[in-house]
């Protein structure tokens, strides 16, 4: 395994200064990533994906658990020892323009990883090579980030991430804001690198169509926990956790007239300040039973991990809605 994370928790304190309260942004997450594997993290907006990525990468300190990368504990490593490890682990941030310093030109931004890690290389040549790899012509080197379109800024992020041939890329929404053709180019590029250099990838995305095509395994997050984890194909074919099923059924399709059978969830997202008892999804689950309100389910299963007392089987129909008069 190139990366193992075990029971990771991240705590934030929120609220006014006189009444700070702790919330768990990530509430005990474990998984491994193998060399060359593409692992997708999907789930509800606000479920802790970006926070988890930052915890793996050492940008966010963790309040519990451990993170092991290339055999070394990252969470306890000093900043100095972290540096060579960081060279092996590249990050593509969710906010493409915000993550680029506004005063640096594109060429310098792409060259920056070489300077930070004091790598000797023909920087001019490398910059040109990297920019053309991500489909930006040479004249972009002179531009400032605010002179780029959203998609162009994201491509600069890809160029920076692959600059030093990392072993693991953590890509937070790497294709958000890209048209489908450029999205294909970026994903194909990452896939080529994966094949050539055994690059492992954690890809965080809301684009389920992308996940379906590129990820070997996927994990679905809800309220800071993984509710289901398994092989991508089998999860798309037969989602077992009700939240996974609802998420996959929502996926908008590029067909204006297609009838969609969606599992609609109650709008009210639970509070992190007062997590629901029992199964934390029970407040929104269409299949909820009385046990779900009191006992917390834990992920189990060898190939597929499912945190649910009553996992769905293929063909399970939505329960008839009980009207609440």
């Amino acid at each position, binding site marked *: 395994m190139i990366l193992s994370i075990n029971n990771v928790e991240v705590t934030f304190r929120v609220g006014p200064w006189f009444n700070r309260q702790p919330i768990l942004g990530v509430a005990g997450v474990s998984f491994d990533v193998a060399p060359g594997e593409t692992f997708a993290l999907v789930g509800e907006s606000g479920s802790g994906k970006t926070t988890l990525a930052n915890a793996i990468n050492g940008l966010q300190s963790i309040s519990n658990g451990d993170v092991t990368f290339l055999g070394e504990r990252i969470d306890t490593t000093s900043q100095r020892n972290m540096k060579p490890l960081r060279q092996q682990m590249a990050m593509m941030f969710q906010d493409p*323009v915000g993550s680029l310093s506004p005063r640096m030109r594109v060429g310098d931004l792409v060259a920056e990883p070489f300077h930070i890690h004091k790598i000797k290389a023909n920087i001019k040549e490398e910059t040109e090579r990297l920019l053309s790899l991500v489909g930006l012509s040479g004249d972009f080197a002179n531009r400032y980030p605010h*002179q780029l379109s959203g998609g162009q800024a994201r491509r600069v992020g890809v160029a920076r991430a692959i600059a030093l041939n990392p072993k693991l890329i953590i890509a937070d929404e790497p294709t958000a804001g890209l048209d489908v053709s450029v999205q294909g180019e970026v994903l194909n590029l990452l896939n080529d690198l994966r094949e050539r250099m055994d690059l492992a990838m954690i890809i965080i995305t809301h684009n389920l169509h992308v996940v379906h095509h590129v990820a070997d395994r996927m994990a679905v997050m809800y309220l800071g926990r993984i509710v289901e984890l398994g092989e991508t194909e089998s999860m798309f074919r037969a989602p077992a956790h009700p939240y996974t099923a609802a998420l996959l059924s929502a996926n908008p399709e590029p067909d204006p007239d297609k009838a969609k059978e969606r599992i609609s969830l109650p709008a009210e997202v639970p509070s992190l300040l007062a997590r629901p008892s029992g199964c934390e999804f029970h407040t929104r689950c269409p299949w909820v039973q009385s046990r779900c309100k009191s006992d917390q389910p834990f992920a189990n299963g060898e190939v597929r991990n499912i945190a649910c007392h009553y996992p769905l089987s293929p063909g399970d129909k939505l329960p008839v809605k009980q009207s609440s008069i």
Partner: protein
Amino acid sequence: MNILEIQNLNVTFDTEDGQLRALRDVSFNVPEHRIVGIVGESGCGKSTLINSILGLLADNGQVEKGKILFEGQNLTELNSSQLRELRGVRISTVFQDPMGALNPVISVGTQMLHIQYRSSLSKSEKLDNAAEMLRRVRIPDRESALTRYPHEFSGGMKQRIAIAMAMMMEPALLIADEPTTALDATLEVATIELLQDLQQQIGCSVLFISHHLGVIAELCDDVVVMYAGEVVERGTTRQIFYRPMHPYTERLLQCDPAGQSERTRHLPTIPGEIPDLRLRTPGCIFAARCHCREDICDSTPPEVEIEGQSARCHRLVA
């Protein structure tokens, strides 16, 4: 009636390497009570178009030619304070980068109070309004959320707060630049429904930019397709998705991974590079990458209209 008419809009940017033509002869309408989507490649000028409407072009950019008629008034002739007036009230916008719309050092609640400055409601009523909007975009812990700062929210939560703020204005025209990129599929669908509701309730029009063809298909009534600063095709959503006329539209739809039924690691792309916007030749803008290119494509393509759907392509007259 059209709430917005863009007529022959041309916008350029001055750069160190010469002048860049970001928009060229862009024309389309946003009719009253309709939701119009814009799709197109990354960098084709969608955000530039919005910034031109709002009078927020970067310093090195200028409208060279053309009209932007909003409720019959040409916006390119207004001064900056008149535009500011309009932006706050009649036109509200969800920008591509939600952090750009939110002030990082002011709490979300205070920002949501500020945008209601025109209203005569009491402070607590305004806060109730704000909390109600947050509920509609499904932000949990509303009371606590109002006291928090933007960085304490996830990417998608910031996006939803920006949507909530834009909707609170009850504008005549809502412009949304990729407002769902950080939203999961359930929220994306919820946002589509919310925008449709809002459109019904207050009868506004919506100009909606997205690369997510599924969202466009489900939300929009009409679609405008752009390529390298030009409008290459426009029509109703059904026309565009079921019977595209322009080869670029055809290719774009084929590249959507949602359309690939077999799982593949190698996703389809449109071969070739986007044209350099500094060197504009007279021919068809898409010719260099087009799968049905012919010699005639080096001359200006005609605009052909069939049943309200129109496209700029030589193939259509043959």
